[in-house]
């Protein structure tokens, strides 16, 4: 099957005064039609920047982004506009991502108008249809964001992203601003809509529970690079990279009787201004060896469609 989206060796560096911030340092990923993939990592790991380059909210410094085989990374904005409706985004904070002065109806009619749909009745009927899909009703049409609850706002955000029938939806932390029960029903809704519309999702998050319930494949990012990738069930059950292990073991378990061993990282994420020469985790890794500081490990293929970038794993495989 032809991939829907291919990101090839994308780098994104920002200038910040005299410094260069290396936000994304050569990441490659592929998303197939109908696939739900997660990109996880902690703040500053470059996951949001990656999604912003795919959406052309910012231009990559290097690398290619192919949508159905066509490079969209350097396409002029006017030409790219034709692809906009096909690649959509659901934002993290529904309070910030909805224009406070627009009613639900106005928010949802804008993407349709931009697609060239003119008829008032057609627009209205499509909006009502979409609202129904996200479990809202016609009574919400004339409400302003402040008149909606957090969960309802996020539903409007989801409706806005899906109303143009996109092939790829980027979900940027779609549940992290929501309370627990609301979070659950939003995950549930996203899963249901994915089955119905058969769009691909790229979920950007640090919440492993959302990943578990929504995605089939996961990629773990650290300091602008992918350090581990593979099917969710396998990566979660048997993480290879020390960072993935630390990340998974840090999630609190809601069971007071299990006292599990935590893999501790030392200190903080290094600054993306001056990247370490070797492995980016070397300074924090409890298992680091001298060579980890010398040479940067490549992303290696492992059996079962898994990939890991760690010197220690390289040996595990070769031996």
């Amino acid at each position, binding site marked *: 099957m032809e991939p829907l989206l291919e990101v090839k060796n994308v780098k994104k560096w920002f200038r910040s005064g005299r410094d260069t911030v290396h936000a994304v340092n050569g990441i490659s990923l592929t998303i197939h039609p109908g696939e739900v993939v997660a990109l996880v990592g902690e703040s500053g790991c470059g996951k949001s920047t990656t999604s912003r380059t795919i*959406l052309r*909210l910012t231009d990559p410094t290097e690398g290619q982004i192919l949508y159905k085989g066509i490079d969209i990374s350097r396409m002029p904005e006017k030409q790219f*506009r034709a692809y*906009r*409706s096909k*690649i*959509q*985004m659901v*934002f*993290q*904070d529904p309070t*910030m*991502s*909805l*224009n*406070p*002065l627009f009613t639900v109806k106005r928010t949802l009619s*804008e*993407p349709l108008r*931009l697609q060239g749909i003119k008829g008032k009745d057609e627009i209205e009927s499509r909006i009502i249809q979409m609202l129904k899909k996200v479990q809202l009703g016609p009574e919400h049409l004339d409400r302003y964001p*402040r*008149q909606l609850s957090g969960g309802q706002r996020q539903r409007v*955000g989801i409706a*806005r*992203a899906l109303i*143009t029938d996109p092939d790829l939806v980027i979900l940027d932390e779609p549940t992290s601003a929501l309370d627990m029960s609301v979070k659950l029903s939003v995950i549930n809704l996203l899963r249901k809509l994915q089955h119905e519309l058969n769009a691909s999702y790229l979920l950007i998050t640090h919440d492993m529970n959302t990943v578990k319930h929504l995605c089939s494949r996961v990629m773990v990012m650290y300091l602008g690079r992918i350090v581990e990738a593979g099917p969710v069930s396998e990566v979660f059950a048997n993480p290879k990279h020390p960072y993935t292990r630390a990340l998974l073991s840090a999630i609190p378990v809601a069971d007071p009787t299990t006292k599990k061993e935590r893999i501790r990282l030392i200190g903080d994420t290094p600054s993306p201004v001056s990247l370490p020469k070797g492995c980016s985790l070397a300074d924090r890794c409890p298992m680091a060896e001298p060579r980890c500081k010398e040479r940067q490990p490549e992303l290696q293929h492992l059996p079962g469609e898994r990939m890991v970038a760690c010197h220690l794993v390289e040996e595990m495989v070769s031996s």
Partner: protein
Amino acid sequence: MNISTETAEVTPALRNDKRFRFTRLFKHNVSLTTGLILLIFLVLVAILGPLLTQHSPYETSPGDQYMAPSLAHLFGTDEFGRDIITRVIHAARLDLFIAVSVTALAFVVGSIVGSFAGFYGGWVDMVISRLVDVLLSFPAFILAMGVTAMLGNNLQNVIIALSVAYMPYFIRLTRAEMLKLRNAEFADAARCMGTSKVKIMLVHLLPNAIGPAVAQCTLTMGWAILDAAGLSFLGLGIQAPTAEWGVMIGNGVRDIFSGEWWTAFFPGIAVIVTVMTFNLIAIGVRQLKED
């Protein structure tokens, strides 16, 4: 519980709260109510006043020069025997018109220019901001004096001069708001839909950025009244014999020394009341926002 988010949900809802009552507004915000009542009075005077006066503002009556205020002439008469109350009332129309057009022009042009500066940044912002700095380095009144002196003194040029003088404030306010808003997620969302940059700026962001500039309007109205009168007083603005408060004060000043205080006094009161009206509203609006 997070108090700050909860209050944030409460305050904006006030605007279309059905239970919003004037009695409460009156009790809590004396400045705004007083200002609004005065404004209604001023507008009524400006609209209806000229229909009710018995005299014409330009009707001279050689026998009635410098008559002190009396029942026949409530505010007295001036050097040509013109009825001062008639002239003050007629001038209200002109002066309010100047204030409104100056403010509207400064507001519209200033906010749009400020939006461009804040939204596009880079050299656009550089050029606009430096220009604003240059304009702000002159006191507004001196600047307006310069412009009228250059363009010639008629009504249209007074309006242009004053709006140029006040525009920098609007540019700065809108630019600052725009800087805060341009990275808002809803702007990104609009871009993801394929909305053009100019449209994002004008349709999505500008209405959200306009608040402080709107609040500035009332203050500017007061300044415009004062400065328009000032320009006429110096002979750089509206010219005699037009019924205008500044012109009347300018002409009346020398009469004060010969004892005919009323020729300058009443137009002066009109200026004070009008400026106070707008300042009260400005204070009231600020208080409303703080509540």
